[in-house]
């Protein structure tokens, strides 16, 4: 929908924050881009990859964030500007490499873009990655608008080169996924030559960009790193992305960054306190523009910090205040530490208004203009609105896989359970997955934790364990866990729910698909051949063959070999439906065969199997197909004990 590649300086487009980040990279003359999909970061590579060839840069969906970032570093060390993007969890995966890359520094600009997910709306947690920048002395930029996403990403390349180290751009869901008006800048001429220069001169670190991280004397590199980083404050101090607006000596100073700055600005406007409150917007949140902040701390008796997730700026400013000379005025600080700002979840305008009103000692009631009558209608309606919990899509192969897993574990009869993993398969923990998934931590964590359960038999543990992961998760982080299990003879079955796409984040390709990010043919990696090479039992099933899949799973659970692999393979229904416009089957319920409540199945199809395409016709007391929702996959025909659900091949 966006056209970020056009060379039309001065024109405006409606861009997602993530698309604006991609445009910023183009305006910086990027030569290399890598990523692993993860909400809310995926659209950055999703936008860059399709235009990579035309614009003359390399783009890659990598197997995981670590390889993505390592590959981007190679480009940087070879005189090519590079960008690597990921969600917050991905930064955990790259941290070991990142710590060591800081020891050497980089060549041409290397930008790490991280999209945090305050509230954990589409993540397993709501970790704040900003403390990593402070911990490792990495310059950290926090854009507030789509325009700044573009402008700050472009600047991040310059900053990286000025300091000779990676720079980090931190976005959040409400920024990455908001479309805003973006004015385009110029695209540079495309002349790049890559060359890896292998020299290292510890006495002249600004000229020595290429090295080995360790060098036998890590403390020497620490000194070099600190020297390099000591130049960062001057760039941050003078940055136009830090700005103050408000009265000369405000009663209250708000310090804010990122998307929260827009909430703070609107809160001040709604409470009509412009003449009493000033806002210091920080675009560079590590290192802090200490001079700018110190000057403003002197002019106000109260400071309120508005930021999301961790009290990162809050703590850093308090450290700064503690280091100011003894006669420097120190204001009272309000924020997460004082309890005036919610310490968890995302911020929003309402919360920021409440925080500001409390600190200002004013009262504010949301929706105060509503009449009691209107409010009582609202209250009545809220009671009758059913929620929309997560579910597998109609036709999703995972519904079939978990149905089979549940029945296999029941037939096995030893109280077996599933250790889950990240991605669509995580929904195995809720009703559409028959509540089978009992552990859920991190990429590759399903098979990792199964390794431990599989060694507890000496303590009378006899529950069989099925570790579940998706295909992209298998390649990302599950292979070491599987090999560890095989080596140490841990007792578990790994079920790889292979739907041939990184489905949850938007169907990105992976090694099993044989296609690369740019749509070019890649070498296809066979999951079964890889698993078979380990010398353990490997079976491949179509989960839509429910009977066959249940039998295979049951056989594996009882196999004498401790570690086993079952690949449950069927293409993601959304991928299939995009390609084949026709549904495979026309589905209908034969009213003569469906005997409704008389059946004794207790509405197995709609209550338990719960595909959104199957609905209960209350008036008729029978099941029926909702044709607008049904994908025509045909699976439910095998679920009805009366054989009342009919499928006609189309």
């Amino acid at each position, binding site marked *: 929908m966006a056209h970020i590649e056009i060379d039309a300086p001065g024109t405006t487009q*409606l861009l997602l924050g993530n698309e604006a980040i991609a445009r910023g990279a183009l305006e910086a003359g990027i030569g290399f881009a890598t990523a692993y999909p993860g909400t809310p970061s995926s659209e950055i590579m999703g936008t860059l990859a399709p235009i990579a060839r035309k614009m003359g840069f390399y783009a890659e969906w990598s197997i995981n964030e670590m390889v993505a970032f390592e590959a981007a570093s190679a480009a940087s060390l070879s005189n090519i500007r590079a960008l690597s993007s990921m969600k917050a969890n991905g930064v955990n995966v790259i941290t070991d490499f990142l710590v060591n890359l800081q020891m050497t520094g980089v060549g041409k600009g290397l930008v790490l873009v991280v999209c945090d997910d305050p509230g954990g709306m589409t993540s397993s947690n709501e970790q704040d990655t900003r403390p990593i920048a402070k911990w490792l002395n990495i310059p950290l930029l926090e854009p507030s608008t789509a*325009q700044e996403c573009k402008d700050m990403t472009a600047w991040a390349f310059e900053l990286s080169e000025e300091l000779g180290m990676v720079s980090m751009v931190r976005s959040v869901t409400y920024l990455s996924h908001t*479309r*805003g008006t973006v004015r385009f800048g110029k695209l540079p001429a495309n002349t790049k030559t890559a060359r890896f220069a292998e020299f290292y001169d510890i006495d002249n670190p600004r000229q020595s960009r290429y090295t080995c991280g360790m060098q036998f004397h890590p403390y020497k590199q620490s000194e070099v790193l600190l020297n390099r980083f000591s130049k960062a404050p001057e760039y941050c101090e003078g940055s136009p992305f830090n700005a103050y607006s408000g009265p000369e000596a405000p009663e209250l100073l708000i310090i804010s960054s990122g998307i929260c700055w827009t909430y703070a600005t609107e809160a001040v406007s709604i409470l009509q306190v412009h003449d009493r409150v000033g806002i210091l917007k920080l675009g560079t949140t590590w290192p802090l523009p200490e001079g700018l902040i110190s000057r403003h701390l002197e002019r106000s008796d109260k400071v309120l910090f508005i930021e999301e997730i961790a009290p990162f700026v809050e703590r850093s400013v308090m450290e700064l205040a503690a280091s100011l000379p003894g006669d420097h005025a120190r204001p009272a600080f309000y924020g997460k530490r004082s309890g005036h700002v919610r310490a968890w979840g995302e911020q929003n305008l309402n919360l920021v208004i409440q925080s500001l009103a409390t600190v200002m000692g004013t009262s504010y009631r949301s929706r105060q203009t509503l*009449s009691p009558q209107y409010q009582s209608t609202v209250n009545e*309606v809220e009671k009758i609105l059913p929620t929309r919990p*997560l579910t597998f*899509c109609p036709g999703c192969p995972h519904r079939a896989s978990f149905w089979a897993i549940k029945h296999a574990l029941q037939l096995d009869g030893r109280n077996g359970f599933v250790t889950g993993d990240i991605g669509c398969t995580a929904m195995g923990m809720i009703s559409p997955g028959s509540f089978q998934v009992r552990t859920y931590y991190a990429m590759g964590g399903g098979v990792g934790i199964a390794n431990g359960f599989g060694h507890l038999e000496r303590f009378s543990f006899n529950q069989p364990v099925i570790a579940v992961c998706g295909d992209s998760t298998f390649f990302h982080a599950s292979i070491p866990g599987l090999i560890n299990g095989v080596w140490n003879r841990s007792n578990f079955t790994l079920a790889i729910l292979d739907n041939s796409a990184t489905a949850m984040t938007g169907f990105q390709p992976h090694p099993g698909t044989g296609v690369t990010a740019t749509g070019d043919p890649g070498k296809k990696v066979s999951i079964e051949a890889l698993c078979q090479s380990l010398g353990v039992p490997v079976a491949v099933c179509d989960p839509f063959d429910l009977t066959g899949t249940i039998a295979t799973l049951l056989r594996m659970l009882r196999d004498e070999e401790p570690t086993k692999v079952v690949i449950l393979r069927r293409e993601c229904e959304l991928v299939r439906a995009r390609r084949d416009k026709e549904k495979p089957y026309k589905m209908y319920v034969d009213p003569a065969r469906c005997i409704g409540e008389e059946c004794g199945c207790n509405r197995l199809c709609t209550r338990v199997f719960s595909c959104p395409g199957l609905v209960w016709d209350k008036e008729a007391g029978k099941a029926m197909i909702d044709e607008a929702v049904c994908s025509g996959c045909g699976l439910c025909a095998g679920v009805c004990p009366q054989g009342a659900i009919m499928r006609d091949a189309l």
Partner: protein
Amino acid sequence: MSQQELSKDPLKVIIAGVGGQGNVLMSFLIGSAMIKLGYSVTVFDNYGASQRLGAVASHIKISRESSDMSPLLHEGDADVIVGIEPIELLRNLTRFGNPEVIAIANLRPVYPIGVISGEAEYPELDTVIETIRRLSAQSWIVNASEEALKLGNPLYTNVILLGVLLGSKALPLDRETIEEVLREELPQAFEMNKAALQKGLDLVKVD
């Protein structure tokens, strides 16, 4: 560029529906048209973790004055709410509605999984219609899904609703700009979308 003043600045719109109904496309089309008319726009599509069938709400803010708007609407602060699905319209009316809000509803329900499994009930459509009327100053309640099927594909539902929105004059939109955006963004389906837009405009006249 239009010199039309906004009745409020920023003007705030919500498009509510269910994953797979085309919320994101609809909010993008509206946002793009507004940019063509020289306004600043933010659009946030709140779709959570689900690919299909989760609640989706797109928040749109349109301004002449500010380009630094926060992405989400404030409670009780919507000027227009369009529901591609009726109870998603109601859900957003309860949070963002006010006595001045304009409501546009498509009457075709998409049942939540709890309703399918029998744990929850879908409210009666008559109740839904009555409540929409009580919670809005002006409302257009149409069966866009049915009209889309008559045009040959349920996918036209959102463009029909875009026609209703255009006809309602709730936004400073004009037909030429919307058609220009449809032509640019969906060139292969332009003629059908043009017909769907016309259908939406006709529904406003009938109402």
